[in-house]
C-alpha cells in the first residue's frame, strides 16, 4: 500500500510540468520524422532488411521515440534523486527508515514511468499513426504481452540506473558513469537502429545484453514478431535480466551500507 502511495505521488510530481511535456512530445516527434524518412530510404533500397518491411521499420521508429522517456533511456528518473541524496549524505537518513530503499525508489520510478507513458508515450504514437500510418498490435495477446514487456523494460532499466546511481557511494558524483551507460543504452537498446540490422557477432551480443529489453523486445512484440513459445522466451529474457539486476542492486546496497557506516554517514 505504501509503495502505491509512493508511486502515485511520483506520478503527480511529474505531471506538474505540462509545457515541458508538450515540448518533449514535439521534440520526440521531430526526431521521429527524421528517422522515419531515413529508415524509409533504407527499406526502399533493401525492402526486407533485418526481416522487417517498411511499415515495421517506421512503426519501430515511433515506438522507440515513445518508449524513450518511459524507460528513461538516458538515465534520470527516481534514481537521480537517489544519487543526489548519496552525494549530500542525506542517504544516511533513508537508511535508518523502516522501508527498503530499493522498493521505495522502484515504486517512485514506476509512478514516473506511468506518467511518461501516458503523455510522452501516447503522444508520439498518435503522431506516428496520423502522419506515417504505423502498425498497431495485431492481436489482443500481442497487446497484453506488450504491456507486460513494457513494465519489465522499466524494471530492467531501473536496475541499471540504480546501479549507476550507487556508484556515487564511491565516486560521489554519478554523472560520468551515467553518460557512459547512457551511450551504451542508446546504441544497444536499438533506439538508434533496430538490433535486427546488427551484423554477425555484434547482433548476437546486442540481443543478449540487458539493453535489448528497452526497445527491441517490446517493439518486436508490438509488431507480432514473436508467437507462442517465442513470446514466452522474449518475456523470459526480460524477467531474467530484471531478477539479476535487482539482486545486484540489493548486493551493492549492502556493500555501500557498510561503507557509509564506516565513514560515519
Amino acid at each position, binding site marked *: 500500500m505504501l509503495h502505491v502511495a509512493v508511486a502515485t505521488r511520483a506520478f503527480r510530481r511529474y505531471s506538474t*510540468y505540462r*509545457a*515541458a511535456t*508538450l*515540448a*518533449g512530445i*514535439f*521534440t520526440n516527434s*521531430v*526526431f521521429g520524422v*527524421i528517422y522515419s*524518412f*531515413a529508415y*524509409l*530510404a*533504407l527499406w526502399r*533500397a*533493401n525492402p526486407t*532488411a*533485418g526481416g522487417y518491411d517498411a511499415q515495421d521499420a517506421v512503426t519501430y521508429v515511433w515506438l522507440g521515440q515513445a518508449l524513450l522517456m518511459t524507460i528513461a533511456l538516458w538515465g534520470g528518473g527516481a534514481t537521480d534523486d537517489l544519487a543526489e541524496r548519496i552525494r549530500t549524505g542525506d542517504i544516511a537518513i533513508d537508511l535508518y527508515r523502516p522501508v527498503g530503499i530499493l522498493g521505495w525508489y522502484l515504486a517512485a520510478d514506476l509512478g514516473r514511468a506511468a506518467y511518461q507513458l501516458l503523455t510522452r508515450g501516447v503522444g508520439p504514437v498518435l503522431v506516428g499513426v496520423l502522419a506515417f500510418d504505423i502498425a498497431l498490435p495485431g492481436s489482443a495477446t500481442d497487446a497484453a504481452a506488450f504491456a507486460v514487456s513494457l513494465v519489465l523494460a522499466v524494471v530492467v532499466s531501473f536496475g541499471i540506473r540504480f546501479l549507476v546511481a550507487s556508484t556515487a557511494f564511491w*565516486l*560521489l*558524483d*554519478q*554523472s*560520468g*558513469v551515467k*553518460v*557512459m551507460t*547512457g*551511450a*551504451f543504452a*542508446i*546504441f544497444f537498446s536499438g533506439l*538508434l*537502429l533496430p538490433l535486427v*540490422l*546488427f*551484423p554477425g557477432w*555484434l547482433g548476437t551480443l546486442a540481443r543478449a545484453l540487458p539493453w535489448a529489453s528497452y526497445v527491441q523486445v517490446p517493439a518486436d512484440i508490438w509488431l507480432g514478431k514473436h508467437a507462442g513459445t517465442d513470446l514466452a522466451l522474449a518475456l523470459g529474457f526480460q524477467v531474467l535480466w530484471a531478477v539479476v539486476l535487482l539482486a545486484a542492486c540489493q548486493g551493492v546496497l549492502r556493500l555501500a551500507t557498510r561503507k557509509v557506516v564506516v565513514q560515519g554517514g
Partner: protein
Amino acid sequence: MADSAARHLRTYGQIAWLWIRAAWQYPTSFVMLAVGNGLITGLDFVGLWIMFTHLQDLGGFTLREVALLYGSSSLALGLADTVIGSVERIGTYVRTGRLDQMMTKPVPLLVQVCADQFTLRRLGRLTQASVVFGWACTGVDWTPLRVLVAVSMLVSGAMIFFGLFVGFACLQFWTQDTDQLANAFTYGGATITQYPLRIFPREIMVGLTFVVPVAFANWYPCLYLLGRDDPFGTPDAFQLASPLAAVLTVAAALLVWRSGVRHYTSTGS
C-alpha cells in the same frame, strides 16, 4: 569596439577556466563525461555504418560522402555547443533568480550565461567528429577554392548552430520549462543534416533552407566539395552562400535575445 570585444572574450575565458577547475574536482566523472560524449557520437556513426551494410548508397550518396555530411554537421554543432551550450539552461536561471544576480555584474549578460557551467565534455564529440571528417576529406578532390569553402563551412556551421542555441533558448524568457523545444532545432538540426537531404521530401529541404537554415551548415557546401549537382535543383549560388546564412542567423538570434532580455521582468520572488 574591438577593445571591448577582446575584454569580453577574456572575461569569458576566465569564467570558463573557473568551471573547468570546478569540474576537475571530480576527475573520474570529468574523464568519463568526455569519453562518454565521444562514445555517444561514435556509436551514432557505427549506426550509420551498420545501415550501409544493408545498402549500396543512401539517396545516391556513399558512406564516405555521408561521412562528410556527418562529420561537418557534428563538428559545427560540437563547436557551438562547447562555446555557448550553457545558454539552454536560461529557464533555470530565470526560475532560481540567478539571472537577476548576473544582471548586476559588470559583464554582458550573454557572456555570463554562455560561459556559465562551461564544460569540456564536448571534447569527446569534437574528437570523434574530427576523425570522421578527416576520413571523409580523403575522398574530396581538393582545389584551393574547395579548401576555402570547407573552412568557411565549418565556421558558418558553428555560427548557425550558435544562432539556433541562443535564439531558441530565448523562448524560455516567456515559458520557463520548454528547454526541450530547442533540442528539436539544435540537436534535431544536427541529426537531420547527417543524412543527405535528398532522402527527405522537398518541403523539408525548403524549411531547412529558409526557416531553420541548417542546410547551409553542411548540405550546400558539401555538394560543392563533392562537385555534385543539387538533386532538388536549387541555384548553384546556394553552395557558396553559407557565410551569408550564418551572419543572418546570428543577427536574428541576437535580436531575439535582446527582445527576450527586455521582456524579462524577474520572477518577483
